[in-house]
């Protein structure tokens, strides 16, 4: 599937290698990888170096926040150390991109917790593969008064919400979830601002 698509290309080894690496990225097929590679070939050397350096910096300088597990360049992250934010609320999301989406609409001024995925039995992703234990440790004797589950309204998101509910309910912390304004099967990241704001404001007790 990979090599056959590149028959038209001269087999210059570094070119083939960049195409192959780009092709591994999500959402990038062989055609796009080819186009991007030729774009890079035409770039001035300093721009190409800046791109390579940015990729390396992301790997070397970006870490997970040891409290909320969002990506950050300093630990703890800016949200966790912002004293103007409500420390008694934690909003649980699947991915760092979901934090971005929620921060954009500015309806929420509490803390976050990024799970880095959802329970997906059919793909072999279980509770132990996510930052669930870390969330429970965070909640122990923390003074947290509300946990908002802001997971995607997908089958996996619902499964994860149900699982978290079983674990958090005995702790006596208020547990809410986003309103069902988000259609089933969709992803938070793609929600428009109105939908997302409404969903947040209409969050429900669990």
């Amino acid at each position, binding site marked *: 599937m990979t090599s056959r698509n590149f028959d038209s290309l001269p087999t210059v080894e570094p070119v083939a290698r960049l195409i192959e690496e780009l092709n591994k990225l999500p959402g990038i097929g062989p055609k796009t990888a080819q186009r991007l590679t030729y774009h890079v070939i035409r770039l001035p050397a300093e721009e190409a170096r800046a791109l390579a350096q940015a990729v390396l910096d992301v790997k070397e300088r970006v870490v997970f926040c040891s409290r909320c597990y969002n990506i950050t360049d300093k630990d703890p992250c800016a949200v966790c150390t912002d004293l103007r934010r409500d420390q008694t609320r934690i909003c649980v999301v699947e991915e760092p991109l979901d934090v971005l989406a929620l921060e954009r609409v500015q309806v929420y001024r509490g803390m976050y917790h990024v799970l880095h995925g959802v329970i997906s*039995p*059919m793909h*072999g992703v*279980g509770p*132990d593969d996510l930052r669930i234990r870390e969330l429970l440790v965070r909640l122990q004797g923390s003074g947290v008064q509300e946990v908002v589950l802001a997971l995607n309204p997908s089958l996996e998101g*619902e499964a994860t919400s149900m699982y978290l509910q079983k674990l958090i309910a005995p702790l006596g912390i208020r547990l809410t979830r986003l309103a069902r304004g988000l*259609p089933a099967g*969709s992803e938070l990241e793609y929600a428009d601002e109105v939908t997302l704001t409404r969903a947040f404001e209409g969050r429900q007790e669990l």
Partner: protein
Amino acid sequence: MTPPSTKPRLFKVEAVVLKQYPLGEADRLLVLYTPELGKLRAVAKGARRPSSKLGGHVEPLVHTRLLLARGGSLDVVSQAEAVHAFPGLREDLGRLAQALYCAELVDAFTPDEQASPPLFGLLVEALATMEEGAEAVFLHCFELRLLALAGYQPQLRHCAECEGPIEPGQHWLSYRAGGVLCPRCAQGVSPPPAPVSLNALKSLRYLQEQPYGRAQRLRLGPEVGAEVRGLLRGYIRYLLEKDLKSTEFLDHLRREGMAPWE
């Protein structure tokens, strides 16, 4: 079996969505089980966006009616309307875990585009049963019915090697032979067959031979239940040469005391 080339450009299918993968920016790749065409793959374009009309109609475990457009390498969902979304499965973690296991079993035992209307019926009926809450034994009924439809029904009345009678006493189940062995045939077999208690053997026979509805009402004690579960899992693992992914989650719930059906 219908070769892809004979499909019209647009065709309707009834299907259960077995699973899905995110694809590209906002699409989903669906694995469907249909009565007339067997297992199919199709793309639901834009299904991950909240504005998508497809979203809830192509979620896993939804019984749905689709209009598919024949595409280059993959068919594309052009319309979708859920027949039954089994909401009860989405509101209970244990039921959901059971249903995902059944869907994965169907996926694992079916080749692409090989029709089996009885298997489709079995799956839809099972989803409805699990939506109402099913006991642990239900999964074993389902496993045995599915194994039979897939051509792997275990032989439990006669020795699977020599067809000799099975006398009361010590019993063995050979995954390779696909059934119980008499003491003579069990000698020196490699890999060594699994020992089976008389209770477990009787339970397996009952679950396999009784009408579906009656078999589901059998109550197994914890010990026999665990033995039957282990034997069927061992047999399925042998046939598929792997463990199903969703068994891990069922086990997890069991370990954490979140498996009320046990």
